[in-house]
Structures are given as C-alpha cells and as structure tokens.
C-alpha cells in the first residue's frame, strides 16, 4: 500500500473537518482513506501536463445580479431552525477569550 495515513494525519483532518472519531472509527478511517487514496493514485498514470483543470461542468461566464434590494426582513426565517436563540440572534458558544 503506497499511502500510509498516520494518526497525526487523521487528527489533522479531524481538525479541518471538525470531526471527532472514536478509536475504532479512527482505525477504520485510516484504512478507508489509504485504500481510496491508493485507488485515486491511478490518476497519476495520465499525462495532464497540458490539460486545463475543469472546475465547472461546462463553460459559462458573467452571470450577475443587478444591485437592487429584493429581500425584506428575513429575521424570522433566519431564526426559524436555530437550536438556541436570544435577542433576535442565534446563540452560539462563546467565541472570544
């Protein structure tokens, strides 16, 4: 197996993705990720040195909105699904300090 995923890598990806895996899940994730990356490494067989990347399904450009206000008071909808709210805002764990 070419790709070896270390505990550190799993922990690092966990920080990026905000996922906390149990010990067992971690082992499983390591194995799955190694397998998938090995599989994805097949792409290296292709010469793409002169190939442009394709980030969109096909070429389109210049889709704009006019700078005109179209929305009214959206506070009710914004709060509708909030797990916790206070004073018209969404309550979240403290962020400063």
């Amino acid at each position, binding site marked *: 197996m070419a790709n070896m995923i270390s505990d550190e890598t799993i922990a690092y990806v966990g920080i990026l993705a905000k996922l906390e895996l149990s010990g067992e899940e971690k082992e499983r994730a390591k194995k799955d990720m190694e397998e998938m990356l090995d599989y994805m490494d097949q792409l290296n067989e292709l010469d793409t040195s002169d190939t442009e990347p394709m980030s969109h399904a096909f070429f389109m450009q210049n*889709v704009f*909105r006019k*700078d005109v206000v179209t929305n009214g008071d*959206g506070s009710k*909808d914004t709060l509708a699904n909030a797990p916790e709210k206070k004073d018209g805002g969404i*309550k979240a*764990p403290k962020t*400063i300090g």
Partner: protein
Amino acid sequence: MGKEYETVIGLEVHVELATKTKIFCGCTTAFGGATNAHTCPVCTGMPGSLPVLNQQVVEYAMAVGLALDCEITRDFKFDRKNYFYPDNPQNYQISQLYFPICRNGKIEIEAEDGQKKQIGIHEIHMEEDAGKLVHDEREDCSIIDFNRSGVPLIEIVSEPDMRTSEEVIAYLDKLRLIIQYLGASDCKLQEGSMRADVNLSVRRAGEKEYGTRTEMKNLNSFKAIARAIEHEANRQMDLLASGEAVIQETRRWDDARGCSYAMRSKEDAKDYRYFPDPDLVPVHISDAWIAEVKARQPEFRTEKIMRYQEEFGLPYYDAEILTGSKKLADFFESAVTVSQKPKKVSNWLMGETMRLLREQNMEADEIRFSPKHLAELIHLTDAGVINSTVAKEVFEEMFRNDVDPKQYVEEKGLMTVNDESALRGVVSQVIKENPKSVEDYRGGKEKAIGFLVGQTMKAMKGKANPESVHQMLKEFLAQ
C-alpha cells in the same frame, strides 16, 4: 537599538463597498437594522441556497484597481476559503485566491521630507464580509447577527514597501481618499468600513532577506495603527536582540492596554483548502467593459488641485485643503456652482468652517449645512443686506443648525440699517457722549476713531455698515 534594524511593513486593507445590496444576494447593506433583519437563505448559509454575484461589486473593484494602476485580470473566478467560525454561516468564505481581480498596482505617497515614494499594490480581491458576534456576559455565550454577512469587501494587499508608521498612515490616507473619490466606499476606520491588518517584520539594516513577519489585527484608528506598529517593531527587535526568534503568527492589538497578544489555538490549522467555488461561474472582463469603467472614473485629487488653481485662481494650499476630502471638494464645487464666487466660498470654507470644525472636533465629512445656504450667505453679504460681523454670526448658526440664512436674517432683523438720518442721530449722540475720544482724534490720534465706530455699531446693535459709520464719523469730526 532602532538604528541597527529596519522595519518592513505591508498592509492588508479591507474596504466595505458602497453597494446597495450584498455581494451574493438581494439583502440591503444598510446599517442599523434589527438583529438579523437584513438576512436571507443565501447570506445565512441555509441548505440549498446559492450565491449570485452582484455586478456592481466587480465594477467597484475594477474602478479601485484602475485608480491604483493595477492590471485587471481578464478571466477570474471566486474561491472558497474553508474555516469554521460562527460568524461565517457556510463555514467557508467566498473569496479569491487563485485569480484576484487586480494585480500589480501602485500608490505614490509623500514622505515627511516631501520625498515621493511608490508603494506597490500586490493584488486586490473581492470577498464577502462575516456576520457580527456579540459576547453576552450574563450567559457567557455569543449572539450572532448576520446583517453584515455577505456585505461586499475588497481586500487591497500592498507589497512590503513601507518602513515607518508615517508611511503607513500616508498610504492609508491616500488610499482612503482615492476610494472615497470613486464613491466605492466611505472608508471609515471607526465604523469598520475600512480595516487595516499590518504585516510587519524587522531585519538588520542592509540585509536583503525579509525577517519572519507577524500579522496584526483589530486596528480601529490611525492612532492605533501607529501605536501598534511602534510596539510590534520594538517587540520583534527585542526578541532578535536577545537571540530569540520571531514566530509567524496573527496577533490581536488591544488598544486600551497598548499591547498585542497572539491569536493561537490548536483548533486553527490555517489550512484553508481554497478551491474554485462551483456555485459561481467565471467572470470575463472585456476591453469594452474596462473602457466603460475608465470613462466613468471621477476627477481625482491631483487633477482637482490643478483645476482649482487654474479655473478659480485659488492658491495651491487652499486647493489642497479643499480637496482633502471628497465631501469637502463636492461641497465646494456645488457652492461655487450656485454662487459663482469661488474665492468667497473658499474663504468661508478655509476660514470659519475650518475654525468651527476644529473647535468642535469634527471632520469635514460631518459638515451639516448645505452649499446652497453658504451661497445664499455670500449673496446677502455681497448685496450689503448684512455686514460681515453679522454674516459670521449667521454662519455660526448655519454651521450648527443649517438654518436658511435669508430667513434667519429676516426673522432676527439683522439687516444692515441704511437709513442715513437714523445713523446721523446716533453718530452725533456718540460724539456728544465721548468728548475725550473726539478730543484725542482731533488732537491727531487717528486711531481714536475706532473706538467711536465701535460705540456707534454697538448703539446700532451691529446692524450698520461699519464703513458708512467710519465715513460719517470722519465727516462729523471734521466739522
């Protein structure tokens, strides 16, 4: 110690654009709405919502780029910057990494010694602003308001070309003025519509390589920027002098305490995993579009200074002051259009206006009275309806409450009295009551007449023309 080291500074300046709506949705950017009033599924990151680009954002960014001599990137995209924070509803910010809209520009600043210096602009990119987090003391939590989420920003990244806090302030001042002239933003540091992050490193004088830099955030005034720069430069020099290394990090300036601290967390990986946003399509800027934006560029300060001198015959100094803020220049020009008296308008602005602004600790942008009223006041004075002393009094009232000078003069009965017989009576009375001064004058002390003019004006409650009073006193005393 300072002489051995050189400070190297680059700035990342965020400017909130003056669009009516947010960058990717039709919510208003107006200040002051109730919490979360200016939100919709798009700017709150609701599942299934999609962004659509506000064309005006591109035009403002282009206008700023052109004004800063940038190259305009003809084909660009938006990229997602991925990081988790509660003010960032999607947990990614739509920004530009790979192809920023503008690159390679410059700003010319003037150093203290009058020397001109060019500061390079590395790039300008467009992005969305985050919401606001308010700390709730009682419940020890944060309350999120997404009203500012999705407000368009441009980030102007300079080259590390500045060496002193004075250069930094000169750069910011110039940048602010250009953007204000464009109408692309009001650029208020205190209100956060302009935000500057300072990248700073120090190196031994003469060295070619840059030192390790830090990024300083939370700088809310020019004064804070200057203080933070001094402080951070000293901190880094101390570290180097004692053989320690500077750590590359982001620091937060605490202006109240006059120091900064590192914003570090093991949960911040600083790995933003940028990739092209698949929800937005690329933008192509044609020659014609650039030409259109160019054609709409306003007259900038340098051109205005030239024109004020040539067209209105103002001295350079006055032209420079009057163009020091877009608002003041606009004010000047509209007052001139109404009154056709550029020099008098300039005098009022340079003299009384500046005096009162200083006295009340106000910026020129905060002027409340209208150019039309200033023109009216000039007209009243020129026509001899009021004298210059009264005019100053009316002006003060106008400055404070934007009263209509004509109406005010009428209501308060401040018109100059041109009734000669009434004036004759008062003058003869004054001469009668002040024999000493009369004697002095007749005895050769010409200055004594000044006192008599004053007394007459006082008796006339200021409503006489001082020149006529002076003339009449001379006639009476000659008899």
